[in-house]
């Protein structure tokens, strides 16, 4: 039993906030945490300021749970600050783990993002050409906002990470398990992915699997999928075979194909490449033309294959960025 309460921080970088909600989704367990831990920083729920963190001794925090990717200079600054103050840093959720949905921005350039978001967006009033700049002179004073990086990083690109909890968001029971492990001091080897299985989603997926041969790929809305049969063999692109389980098979159980948020299997270097290899393997054709037609049924395959992990892929980003 710890003599003193655990000192913990929860932080969100470039993310949607869903991970914080996932922590809250542990429901009354959050009270158990509060019983054994002081939450020193949790912007979404607790009133703590950066300067409070800056004031801490190095290593004063026992645990930082960091969700969200690193998109701008603020994300990086706080990540580094928390790393300095914290004994353990956990990359929490797909964004911190692999770059997540924000990481998909690595297929495009910063300029393209700004153009889409600030210039060619239908909600922008005509004639407004304002785009954010790190420093702006306004009314005689200098305004600064965080610098928007050219690309998105996963957390371990900028700091040393002790553990990874995958998922978009991590499943509530896995969250609970992680906290329990820290509280109990039963920690796995550094660098481990915790709260996830060593096998693919299929292992837990209740759908029946047969030998696979596909002549046509469908988007989920295009067909009435058999609820009891493997989605992939029905021609619906499902990343389950290429994705760690641990999520509780939430998507395939609900008729939605897996998108791969739990990341690659332990032996896999590049989730998208492996997923690609598996998907084409089940194509039932020997005719190059027909094969092209079949893969026409897989629009934006790269976007699907790297939906949660482009910055952690081997190539990390488009060479154009």
């Amino acid at each position: 039993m710890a003599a003193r309460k655990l000192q913990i921080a929860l932080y969100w970088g470039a993310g949607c906030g869903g991970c914080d909600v996932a922590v809250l989704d542990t429901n009354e367990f959050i009270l158990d945490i509060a019983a054994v831990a002081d939450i020193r920083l949790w912007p979404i729920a607790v009133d703590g300021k950066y300067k409070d963190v800056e004031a801490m001794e190095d290593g004063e925090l026992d645990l930082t749970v960091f969700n969200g990717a690193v998109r701008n200079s603020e994300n990086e600054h706080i990540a580094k600050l928390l790393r300095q103050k914290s004994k353990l840093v956990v990359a929490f959720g797909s964004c911190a783990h692999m770059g997540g949905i924000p990481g998909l921005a690595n297929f495009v350039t910063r300029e393209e993002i700004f153009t889409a978001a600030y210039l060619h967006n239908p909600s922008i009033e005509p004639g407004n050409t304002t785009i954010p700049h790190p420093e702006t002179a306004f009314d005689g004073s200098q305004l600064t906002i965080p610098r928007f990086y050219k690309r998105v990083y996963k957390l371990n690109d900028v700091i040393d990470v002790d553990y990874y909890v995958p998922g978009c968001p991590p499943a509530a029971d896995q969250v609970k398990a992680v906290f329990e492990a820290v509280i109990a001091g039963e920690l796995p080897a550094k660098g481990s992915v915790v709260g996830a299985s060593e096998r693919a989603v299929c292992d837990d997926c209740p759908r029946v699997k047969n030998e696979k041969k596909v002549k046509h790929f469908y988007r989920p809305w295009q067909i009435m999928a058999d609820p009891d049969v493997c989605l992939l063999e029905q021609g619906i692109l499902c990343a389950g075979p290429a994705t760690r389980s641990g999520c509780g098979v939430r998507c395939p159980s609900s008729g939605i194909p897996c998108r791969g948020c739990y990341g690659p299997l332990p032996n896999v270097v590049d989730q998208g490449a492996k997923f690609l290899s598996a998907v084409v393997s089940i194509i039932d054709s020997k005719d190059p033309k027909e094969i092209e037609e079949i893969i026409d049924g897989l629009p934006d395959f790269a976007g699907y294959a790297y939906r949660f992990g482009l910055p952690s892929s081997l190539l990390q980003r488009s060479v154009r960025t």
Partner: protein
Amino acid sequence: MTFEPKIVGFLCNWCSYTGADLAGTSRIKYRPNVRVIRVMCSARIDPTFVIKALAEGADGVLICGCHPGDCHYTEGNYKTMRRYPLLKRLLADYGIDDERVRLEWVSASEGKRFADIVDDMTERLCELGPSLVKSALATDAVER
């Protein structure tokens, strides 16, 4: 100094590697830019290998297998044939030029063909210039 592209060649053991050997036994000269890695069948060539080679600095990747219908393992090359077009689309999204990754069928008797392919690909890559992948990965740390 002129740009000498680096090509990683993944060759199947039975047809293409033997074909490349034949180019040697026939003393057919070709550009020295290819570095061959032998696999048992082109179907073994995981897209990860191609991506890995590009990430490690290859300017091009050449995949060679038996001609369709001629595979030592009956149908291995069809698996390659299915993998390749989707891989190309994926690489296009990474901004990698279409010609950097090439799939060719080379039989054990086509030493000359192998040599011609290497020469042609080297030529094309010289025109394209160096691959940006490795530099893109290397400059990460400073260009935030």
